[in-house]
């Protein structure tokens, strides 16, 4: 049985790829992921904003209160160098490359135009096999049009692509007026893959203290529906490979992603809950299922339930909405 797949031009031994998460921050965990069967690794994101704010914070607090008082003209020893910015991340990529044999995909979340390109280039130089652009952007300005936002995505991608030789994936959120058109624009701009979808961390409220608090929830299984639908819609309409992320928890989820047209199913929350060993369980279940259902290869099923291939394409459109509502109502009657 052949469960290989091809993603970003890379030959992968199976379609399960741990997505960017704290799991890959530790090289031992990364190794465990590989041992459990992960086909590639997406490294946690390098946040340009974090680098900038760390730099500013360090500069501020190392100099705060200095040269004010004769007995204490400073409060900290100053090392001759700091590893402020991407060095640590880049070293980590290099370490991972030394630790695992599977492809290592870097990930970056930039802010400034210069930052995206600079750090992307450095990640490439550090040895990453591919790069994922994690475009996390919440347009809160009432003056910013949808088109401007879309252009920002496209321009960022173009700038990075121009400077990089390794393949580039774009991880994006679903909140576009015309998702398909957006995907097409990115495809035209040279995206080698689209990773659907970024989960925007949505803050919560603390009612006791009347505060807005950051609150990260692991994904749940139902969240897979959205990427699944859009992969199925986009399959065959874009050249870029498609990958699903959010809500993948079991072999059936992986199968669904494949049948929708995905090249890989990315997984994180499930691994954070159950540990790296979960991959081997899913792979075993996957193979068993394929055996039972007499599938020969993953390739065979990829896109089989996409909008292009499915018997009732309207299921992905409005009719599907109608049907869903009806199916929901029925039990009540």
């Amino acid at each position, binding site marked *: 049985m052949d469960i290989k797949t091809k993603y970003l031009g890379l030959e992968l031994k199976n379609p399960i790829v741990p997505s960017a998460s704290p799991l890959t921050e530790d090289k031992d965990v990364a190794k465990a992921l590989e041992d459990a069967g992960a086909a590639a690794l997406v490294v946690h994101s390098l946040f340009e904003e974090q*680098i*900038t704010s*760390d*730099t*500013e*914070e*360090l*500069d*501020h*607090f*190392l*100099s*705060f*209160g*200095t*040269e*004010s*008082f*004769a*007995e*204490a*003209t*400073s*409060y*900290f*020893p*100053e*090392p*001759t*160098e*700091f*590893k*402020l*910015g991407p060095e*640590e991340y880049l070293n980590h990529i290099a370490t991972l490359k030394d630790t695992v044999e599977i492809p290592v995909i870097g990930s970056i979340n930039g802010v400034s135009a210069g930052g995206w390109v600079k750090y992307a280039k450095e990640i490439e130089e550090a040895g990453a096999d591919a790069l994922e652009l994690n475009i996390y952007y919440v347009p809160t300005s009432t003056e910013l049009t949808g088109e401007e936002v879309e252009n920002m995505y496209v321009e960022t991608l173009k700038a990075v692509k121009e400077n990089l030789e390794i393949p580039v994936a774009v991880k994006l959120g679903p909140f576009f007026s015309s998702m398909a058109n957006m995907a097409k624009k990115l495809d035209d701009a040279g995206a080698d893959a689209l990773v659907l979808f970024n989960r925007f961390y949505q803050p919560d409220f603390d009612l006791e*203290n*009347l*505060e807005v608090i950051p609150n990260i929830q692991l994904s749940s299984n139902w969240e897979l529906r959205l990427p699944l639908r859009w992969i199925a819609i986009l399959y065959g309409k874009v050249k870029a490979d498609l990958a699903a992320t959010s809500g993948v928890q079991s072999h059936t989820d992986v199968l669904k992603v494949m049948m929708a047209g995905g090249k890989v199913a990315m997984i994180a929350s499930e691994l954070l809950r159950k540990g790296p060993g979960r991959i081997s369980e899913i792979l075993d279940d996957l193979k068993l299922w394929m055996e039972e259902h007499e599938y020969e290869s993953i390739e065979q099923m990829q896109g089989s339930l996409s909008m292009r291939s499915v018997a009732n394409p309207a299921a992905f459109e409005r009719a599907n909405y109608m049907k869903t509502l009806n199916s929901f109502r029925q039990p009540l009657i």
Partner: protein
Amino acid sequence: MERKKITIDGNEAAARVAFKLSEVIAIYPITPSSPMGEASDAWSAEGKKNIWGTVPSVTEMQSEGGASGAVHGSLQAGALTTTFTASQGLLLMIPNMHKIAGELTPTVFHVSARSLAAQALSIFGDHSDVMQVRPTGFGLMASGSVQEVHDLAAITHKASLESRVPFVHFFDGFRTSHEIQKIEELTDDDLKELIDDSYVHAHRERAMNPDKPVLRGSSQNPDVYFQGRETVNKYYNAAPEIVQKAMDKFAEITGRHYHLFDYYGAPDAKRVVILMGSGTETAEETVAYMTEKMEEKVGVIKVRLYRPFSAKHLLEALPKTVEKIAVLDRTKEPGSLGEPLYLDVQSAVIEAMTSENPPFEKTPIIVGGRYGLSSKEFTPAMVKAVFDNLKQDHPKNHFTVGIYDDVTFTSLDFDKNFIIEDEQATKCMFYGLGSDGTVGANKNSIKIIGGETDNYTQGYFVYDSKKSGSTTVSHLRFGKNPIKSTYLVQQADFVGCHQFVLLENFDVLGNIKEGGTFLLNSPYPKDEVWDKLPKKVQQQIIDKKLDFYVIDAYKVAKDTGMGARINTIMQTCFFAISGILEKDEAIAKIKNAIEKTYGKKGEEIVRKNFNAVDQSLANLYKIDYGNEVTSQIELPPVVSPKAPEFVKDVLAELIAGRGDDVPVSKMPEDGTFPTGTAMWEKRNVALEVPVWEPDLCIQCNKCVIACPHAAIRAKVYDEEYTKNAPETFKWMPARGKKDAGKVYTIQVAVEDCTGCSLCVEVCPAKDKTNPSRKSINMAPQIPLREKERENFEFFLNLPEYDRTQIKIDSVAESQLLQPLFEFSGACPGCGETPYVKLVSQLFGDRAVIANATGCSSIYGGNLPTTPWTFNKEGRGPTWNNSLFEDNAEFGLGMRLAIDRETEYARELLSELKDEIGAELVEAILTAPQVTETDIKEQRERVEQLNDKLKTLSNPRAKELLTVSSYLVKRSVWIMGGDGWAYDIGYGGLDHVLASGKNVNILVLDTEVYSNTGGQQSKATGLGAVAKFAAAGRPLPKKDLGRMAMTYGNVYVAQIAMGASDIQSLRAIIEAEHYDGPSIIIAYSHCIAHGYDLAKGFEQQKLAVDSGYWPLYRYNPENIKKGKNPLKLDYKGPKIPLEDYIYNETRYKMLTKANPERAKKLLADAQEHVNEMWKIYSHMASMDYSHFLEKQEDNN
């Protein structure tokens, strides 16, 4: 050979050489020598090598006594060893110094000479400390400038190795240790050529070695000790020549030729001044002027080698024509015939004149005088006054110069207008706040000018003694000639005022010369600025025809993302208009310096600074002013006219920066000062202050307990008082049945607030419609100042709540107690002062306080004013600071005295029972004195007693009157930081805990030596970066509380007000009530932790929630009740440690400097925290019921 020129300060000049010529360095922080240890520690951590190619090891000890012990051991075991110290630190080394010298062991101690604590402590420079080590057998070598420090350090190391005489190499604290000069750097090759390795090998050969065992440190008896003592003579006899040869060798290498005594002046001088240290530079400058411009026959002898004292060399150096000599000592020995150098010179000359070959035809007249104590300015005018004195037929002897002594009339008059600064040099002064980066920018400018031009440079910086809103004055000189003016700038070509408000507080233009340039950072547009200047300043600008430039640096900083940092902007303006460098060249150099300074902190920081440079020029304006003074703005009085006479007469002069003019007669004779003076020093340092919104207030008083400066107060009082309230004064109905019908006010002292906003952070009351609005919110201070000043005064005059009616163990009610510690100079948001203030509220009116040296002694007792104050009855804490190392013992001594005097009073009381009346005597003797009511009643009884005693003729009654006040219970508090409690004072603290006496020890634990700039102590947490722990501390902090618990009879509490104010409050009360030793370890967030201290209380909570800072109370009283004495007031680790520690730069910076090590230390620290919880929870769950059974059995 052309050597590299470097621009460094005296400490670095010494440390560079010491590091290169040592293998082991043992250190301990003390001002002003700490930077030598810090630099050595950093170099060692970086792997820098000495001239033999190995990295010296640097070890911090628990005290200077410990450091000298380690030095002694290291020397004995064969390593080339050094240390750095000053002042009391050097005193603690004396016992070992006798040993080291007695054993003829070569070493050099580098000392930035500093005053000793006598009537008061002083961190500043003089020779009081080094004079104390004259009898130790150490040689003494004096340097007068930064170059000399560098050079003589090397010469001294060589001379010590060759002579086997150990040496102290000293230079003046601050004046030289902190003065920045451009000097020629000694290379490794220079040092290798200088040092003869055979002497190094000989030193190792003498080391203790089990392969050829010896015994040193024997005990000798009357038969031979004396002879043994005399064996060293030949080494001391030979030493001066060895030193001179080392100087000669040094001259061969570098071309700079020193002598044991260097003479400068007229070859046929009749009047000569002899002195050592930085004053020699000013003396030389003055002699040059007097001989060249005034044709006077004068000269100066600069003493380099003071011990062993070579009379021969001194006499050779003196011109044969000398008739009169003035010897200047920078120290004081009360009761002596004269100060040491004077006596030495007298002896040398008189011995020679009575010898067979007298060196002079006629015995010169020799007088001695004191100058420059505690870095008192020593100017050419003073040098001239000394020479003028020598013109007299009978020159004044035992004089002082630089002060006005109107009591014993020792002082020489001097002409302040005698100014001889090099006219070719550019002299600049900059007034700024510590927080605005003025000093840093100036240090940078000096380096640019020193490094990029052939100018000589000098920078010296004056800081005030406050830690919040402190003012800095920078004094810079640049010029083609070497700069020998070791005194402040007297006539400035350029004055920069980086804060508009300072125009009101200081005579900023007092020293600018006619036609000079004045740069002002002004918040007002260029068209309005002239009219906003005070009248006096306008007049000065017109009279002196100044070039006047302004920039709104804060606006430029804001626009360029620099926040509130204006250093780069003001520096750019300085270069743009001072003409020291060509403008474009200067800008390029600044950018280059920015790259160097900030490059390691990331590109963004560099970019912002570049942008700020460019924008500065675009916003710099020259102001055209007419000839008219248009301003009506008069300078406000320094203190209120309502202030007490002493405050107006003396302290106000200090506040205004005119302390140098205070005569001797105005100073207290024995170091005794009134308390309650900080209230008169209205500093107005906050840009924003809290404003109370009664509509939201729940009267919890958390803002009041949290305020580090007692600048936010609560009162409950009868509503009728509001009738005369000022228009904007606020109040609301008081909550609670007890206060029904009364009203409640929160009042802010806006002129005393430092704007830390801790109160806003702790305020729990939020507006339900707009949660960003709380019951306390920050607002700009200036618009509120006038009204709130009036409101605060009205508030202070409202009656205090009756102490006997307050439930003191409630946070809200306790905060109605008047704070007797207010408006200190501590950092904004200080984590220590809320505890200190709380103690003052609870027990201040009967507190006797022993305060260890450190932050708390500085914000508590540094002139001009003190935050310790008194209540309407005139009662309040009485406070004293002895030393750093002995505070627990100092406090115990107070307890012993109080106990003794109390017992004596009780004995007398019993003795006079019949005359006084049995009932009163009995009531006094049996009074419980626990609650406020008890205390109040006892005070009334003692008053009654005193009245009665005054009517009795029995002399024993008079005797009782002198001690009757002891019959009211006193509360002894021993306070200090962790450097004292965990390290230097631990031995004493331990002993005091073991004494069983009723003392209360409050450890303000900031986990570093905060006052000296954040060196690690044994309280520093695992993984934290601190000075002397540049690589991150690898070991957990000492568990002082658990160690104290082992005694079983000590009350121990660990508290963190931000995590639980009620637990802090209860612990402090329980500790005070416990009739035995108590220790409270209080988590004190600190500027040295590196985060916004407004979040201090939040961090304290995280420290507790992570399990890092266990909250507990160990009360031995419970043992008697069969209960476990340990009560945990926390629930173990609830959050990961990293959620707490990585909010702080001290921990986080390690993740940026050494991520791998940071990771390991974090894991170790987390494990330790988990382990601590296991230990504590186990201890707290132990069964103590058998103690009860035992007690019952005994009964």
